[in-house]
């Protein structure tokens, strides 16, 4: 066993951090408060080939695995850019997983190269308000129109839909009642997010406001037959090649944000003097920081194990991806919350950035999968307990 990152991963970590360091807390604070997409940042990473990390070399990417993607996204999240920095990039990274694994050759030739260069933006369209976490209950559906399809329905929380030309849509092609299993009968489309047929409304939200999340109303959107990903009716299972990597890299991001918060809080605890001594001398301040540091270290190992399992094509991926997501989301948010306590009133002030990290880290306990549903998965599939819902 070897816990050292190999030389490539070390370089990826170091160079991604160096590039991200050009965009400081003020940049992110500003974009977050103005709800403005961080184009300068995005373009710098795109120009330097980072968005293609998971895309096979044949289609212009770097052909690396989820571990490399995690190292990259952890680096940008720990730069002070937090979720804003990670989300600006990550949809193009894990979002194309199902296309890489299940798309036709024609689809890959057409869409992977511009994704790798960052020109093509893709949104991820799974969640619906009526179905929620019960993905089998989605109602957006596609009907055949000759060789093509027509899609109608509504999606919610579609991150970056404002910028996206394409949306990876999960839709029903067979009503649930007619399927043998509830998750059968859904199909995946890499559809044009054609504004003539789709209305996109930004959802005002607690944090990560430089990157929008939206409601997308879809009215008879024509979709070419060649935009079907993989097989009709197998959409959900194919989507897992996006969902599991998503959980793993988001775990890496949560660790990055948590580490950033602990780093800031440690520096502050060392220099802020109250009662004539640095507050870090009090164990009530020091212990939570030490405890969070160790929690983050543990979570960091777990996402890397999950990534390693995914990259080698192992079987235990669902369990590990969910466990990593659970641990990292808790550790990341707790780290930010404790950092806020260390900063006292200043932790609540925008200027000190901790409140921004805190708002963004909180998201990890809800999305991309809630802690409860991730625990349900572990209880059922890892421990073998009966399904609870």
């Amino acid at each position: 066993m070897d816990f050292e990152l190999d030389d490539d991963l070390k370089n990826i970590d170091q160079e991604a951090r160096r590039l991200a360091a050009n965009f400081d807390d003020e940049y992110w604070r500003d974009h977050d408060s103005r709800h403005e997409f961080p184009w300068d940042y995005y373009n710098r990473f795109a120009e330097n080939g980072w968005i293609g990390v998971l895309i096979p070399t044949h289609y212009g990417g770097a052909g690396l695995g989820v571990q490399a993607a995690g190292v990259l996204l952890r680096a940008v999240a720990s730069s002070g850019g937090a979720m804003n920095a990670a989300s600006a990039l990550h949809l193009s990274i894990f979002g194309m997983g199902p296309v890489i694994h299940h798309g036709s050759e024609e689809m890959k030739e057409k869409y992977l190269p511009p994704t790798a260069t960052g020109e093509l933006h893709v949104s991820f369209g799974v969640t619906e308000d009526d179905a929620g976490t019960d993905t089998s209950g989605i109602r957006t559906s596609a009907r055949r129109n000759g060789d093509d399809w027509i899609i109608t329905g509504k999606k919610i929380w579609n991150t970056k839909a404002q910028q996206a030309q394409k949306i990876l849509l999960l839709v029903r092609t067979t009503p649930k009642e007619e399927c043998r299993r509830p998750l059968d009968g859904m199909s995946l489309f890499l559809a044009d997010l054609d504004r003539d047929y789709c209305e996109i409304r930004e959802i005002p939200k607690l944090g990560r406001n430089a990157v929008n999340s939206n409601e997308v109303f879809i009215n008879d959107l024509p979709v070419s037959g060649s935009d079907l990903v993989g097989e009709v009716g197998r959409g959900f299972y194919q989507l897992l090649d996006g969902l599991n990597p998503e959980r793993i890299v988001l775990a890496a991001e949560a660790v990055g944000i948590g580490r950033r918060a602990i780093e800031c809080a440690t520096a502050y605890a060392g220099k802020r003097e109250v009662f004539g001594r640095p507050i870090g001398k009090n164990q009530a301040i020091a212990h939570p920081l030490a405890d969070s540091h160790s929690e983050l270290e543990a979570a960091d190992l777990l996402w890397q194990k999950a990534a390693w399992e995914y990259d080698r094509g192992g079987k235990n991926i669902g369990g590990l991806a969910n466990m990593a997501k659970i641990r990292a989301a808790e550790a990341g948010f707790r780290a930010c919350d404790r950092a806020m306590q260390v900063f006292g009133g200043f932790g609540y002030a925008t200027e000190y950035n901790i409140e921004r990290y805190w708002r963004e880290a909180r998201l990890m306990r809800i999305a991309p999968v809630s802690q409860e549903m991730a625990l349900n998965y572990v209880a059922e599939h890892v421990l073998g307990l009966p399904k609870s819902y």
Partner: protein
Amino acid sequence: MKILVAVKRVPDPNATIKVRPDGTGIVTDNLKYVVNPFCEIAIEEALRIKENHGGAEVVLVSVGEQVCQEQLRTGLAMGADRAILVLQDGDVEPVIVARALAKLVEQEQPDIVMLGKQAIDDDSNVVGQMLAEMLGWGQGTFASEVKLSEDKSSAVVTREVDGGLEDVEMPLPAIITADLRLNEPRYASLPGIMKARKKELKEIPLGDLGIDQSVQVKVHKLSPPPERQAGKKVETVQELVDLLHTEAKVI
């Protein structure tokens, strides 16, 4: 055309440096290391010459411990073609670095040797100058602009000197040392990082170069700068003027 670029591994300029209590060196635990920023500018300039003058081989050289290969890999990821690591434990005195480079110049026969004007750790600012002297070559130090002649037989180097600029011309081969404003170094791209791992990185023990390794300068003691006194806040201009007069005694 061939360009040799010297690369030094130095502590991250943004890191807080602590001096060891006994003054024999700095605390290196958990310290992050980077390519000396001036060396990075030198690498960038070599790459630009390569790109703008119909190709060149860019060869990086570092003298130091095994870990220096991390910095050489960074340079290779930026686009350099291959690297040589001259292995030696502990601090290596500038004159020994210059001798090692002179030896490699003999073997490699480059047209230009690019260096940073100084390393940000010991600020010696001597290796380029000593190397030029050892080789009997012309030197353009503190370069803020480098122009090669059409036939690549000479270079004009704009030097930043006190209060202005000085253009010097020299035949190649020559030594050029990079100043801050020469260029803005590129970042290693992800494809660049992936290509770097396949590039040659040759290691040569310093002892194998057969150079004089006698030490001429010994560091006796390092001491941290004195701690800054806390400032004072004043309410009025009058108060400020009074204090400048009575306490600071500057007016």
